[in-house]
């Protein structure tokens, strides 16, 4: 597993479960993150599902697609963490992105 893939997994494990959130958390370009998410999903390391309708309706917006680690994903991340000396997954600090409102 490459360092970039491990970083993405680490981000998902830390609670960044949407594509854009992972992009923000890792600082990686979207062109890298999305294909990596697809590949990890194909490999059974991540699973993807649609957000609950109820949650989305409360916002209100259409449901988003979120990713989480499978059991194999957790094992793979543990391996990668040992190899790359990654920090413990930390929960996302739900910082809002920079707003144009002043």
């Amino acid at each position: 597993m490459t360092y970039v893939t491990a970083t993405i997994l680490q981000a998902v494990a830390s609670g960044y479960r949407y594509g854009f959130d992972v992009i923000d958390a890792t600082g990686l370009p979207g062109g890298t993150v999305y294909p990596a998410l697809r590949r990890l999903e194909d490999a059974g390391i991540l699973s993807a599902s649609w957000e609950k309708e109820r949650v989305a309706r409360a916002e209100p917006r259409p449901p988003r697609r979120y990713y989480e680690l499978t059991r194999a994903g957790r094992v793979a991340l543990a391996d990668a963490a040992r190899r790359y000396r990654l920090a413990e997954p930390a929960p996302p600090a739900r910082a809002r992105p920079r707003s144009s409102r002043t």
Partner: protein
Amino acid sequence: MKPHLRLIALLGLIVPRHLRADWRQEWETEFAYRESQLDAWERLEWRDKLDLFRRSTSAFWDALWLYRKRLEAGMILDLRYGVRMLLRHKGFTAAAIVTLALGIGANTAIFTLLDKIVVRALPVDEPERLATFVTGEGRNPLIVSYAAYTALRDRVPLIPAIAACSQWPFALADGAAADRISGAVVSGNYFSLLGVRPAIGRFFGVDDDRTPGAQAVVVLGHSLWRRRFASDPAIVGRAITLNARPFTVIGVTSPEFTGTTRGTATDIYLPIMMAPSTLPGFDAVLERPNWGWLRLIGRLAPDATRAQAQAALAPVLAELGIGRKPAAKNDPTILAVPADVLVLDGSRGYGEEVESLARPLQLLMGAVGFVLLIACANVANLLLARAVTRRQEIAIRLAAGASSGRILRQLLTEGILLAGLGGAAGVFVASRLTRILTGIQQQLTFVPHTLDGTIDARPLTFTLAVTVLTGIAFGLAPARQLLSTDVVCGLKGGRGGIVARRLTLRSLLIVGQVALSIVVLVGAGLCVKSLRALQAIDTGLQPSRVVTASFELGLGGYDQERGRRFVEVVTRRVEALPGVERVAWGDIVAFSDFFSIGGATIEGYRPAPGERMPFDFTTVGPDYFRTLGVPLASGREFTSSDTPNSPPVVIINEAAARRYWPGRDPVGSHISRGRSAVVIGVVRNSRVKKVTDEAKPAIYLPLAQNYSANLTLHVRATTDARSVLPRVRHEVQAIDPSLAVYNVQTLEALKDGSLYAERLSTMLLTLFGALAIALVAIGLYGMLSYAVAERTREIGIRLALGATRGDLMSMVIRRGLVLTIVGSIAGVAGALAIVRVLRGLLFGVSPTDPQVFVVVPIGLAGVALLACWIPARRATRLNPLAALRHE
């Protein structure tokens, strides 16, 4: 629509259809969420808008990644569809696969041997820096004594390393039975010079090759290790017996490295220092300065060219006393190295042993190439014919919106699928064929050579390339026709405007096939005539009903006394076998091309100045000539009364009698070769050496007075040789199981074996010729059947207008025959241009033999007529009413 969402919608088109909706929703909701975090679109700063758009561009990479799945899905669909199409037309599929398997298989098999014997470099480090040494006009390999080798070894700085090797047969005893195997005695630097690595264990080095008889170590060839020791990983350190002497196995070569004689596999390697104690009669080989027995292979210095190396070698040769005649036979100051030594490219090792196969194999490669072309033309023809029935299907797909690229991919997939199946079956055919080719090879040579016919990565790559190319050709052939179909016309099931053009292409394919098969058939015809002429040669002996068995008593550790006892016991026991008429011994194997040649003086004959008097010397036992069916012209045969103590006697052949005693009977004259002997008989000439060689003057010596350790038993059976063969084999093996016996064969088989290269070419060319003619017949039949089906309506009209059935028949047959005749003319012209390459390979037949050039086209026309007749008859049986309604 917002620009980033418009881009997502656009990029979504790349994503496979079944994933597209989800994909768009995922991206759109991400943007919606991000916008909800920012502000209403109208109030966003331009920088945030730009950021959103920039993010949407990364969807391109995501979509592109998913596009792969679309391709995969398409390919699986294409494959599934292709398999379904092939299964639906089982007859067509089977015909195409068998055709391709034979074409590709024959190509792979011949390429395998050709690659190893002619093309491939030795699997060693930097083979281009290797050099071999030859001498004389015939460019014979340079053979030197051990003293000359050591003198040369370190003297030429541009050739810093020279290794020596010598091939010999060995008897390998392991438990009860003994095998005759091919071995190489090599210098200690042989493996390090080549830069090869062992599969297991180690190789011996210079230190193992210093003291005579000290290091009884042996390296096994990979194939012997696999064959004889079942790839035993614990072989290193094990003791084996070679020529009745114990040796320790120290390593096994890698499977790729099979020695420095190309195309053959060496079974064992042992150090030069073990030669005196292991090779019979070689006790003094290291001390004798003029005993040439070693071949050399050198490695040039990194920047040296062969020309430079040769220039540097010349003064060294002069300094060593080369070219001077030795005063005495074993004059130690003169080393037996000829002065005219050439340094040649050694990257492919030595190849004289397999040189006779190189030309036939090149020829066969050309022939199988033609056969593959014919096979491809045939399959392309079949596919073109099938394209007609698929016109409607393709038109529907085009009308439903399939792009021509999509259809092309489908057709290519089908073509490659068909070729792939043909290629896979072809590898199977090739493995059988190489087994046959290496199985019937000549086993008679003095040093056994095992042809290496393993199909490894290179031939497989070749097969893969051929397969893919043929697959693409098949896919593209009908594609051009199908994609130019008028969709509306195709949908209606009509012919469109493509029939005429397609028929022209198919006719051209038939003409090409006929022409190519004429070339192959002419080649086959010439080889058949040549082989017949070879087999019809009167060898002067009667090989039918004779069985042979050869022994190398020296390799079994027999001295002269024990050897003579062995001969007596075998004679007595084999003579007592049922079905045996007579038994005799000789020191040569008939038709093996191995003879002892020497000079002799004839009392009363004064040679002209400079006249050379070479004789073939053969040592034979009593009854030899009667057993082989060679009649006596005068005098008597050797009998049991010719003993070591009786006066020395010899027998000569008619060639010697005619040359040295013209018009006189030589019986009673004397011949001297060291000691004088009386000529007691003259036998008729026989061609035991090589069937194509004219008989040369020969002297036969009695075995009782001239012991030889290399002996062949000849047994004449009362009825059938083959029925006696197993009994003889069993009897001689029972007498001493540890003695390797070889050439247990009928003399007929040995004679056939000596014509190995000729038989191989003839057999394969005939096989390929038959294949070519069958393919042409199938192609012609298929094309005319299709033409009749296409012209059903026209035939109906003709019938309605009063055409007779004879008219219709001649109309169809004429078409087929015109194509055959045009193809034959082209083929005969092509054959006349090409057969020149056969010169030198043919015996007793001219490359432009009129009989072959007449019979082949007529025979082909006969087959073509038959192939035309079936569809022609179908045309005459059409019901005019049904034919008129046909469309």
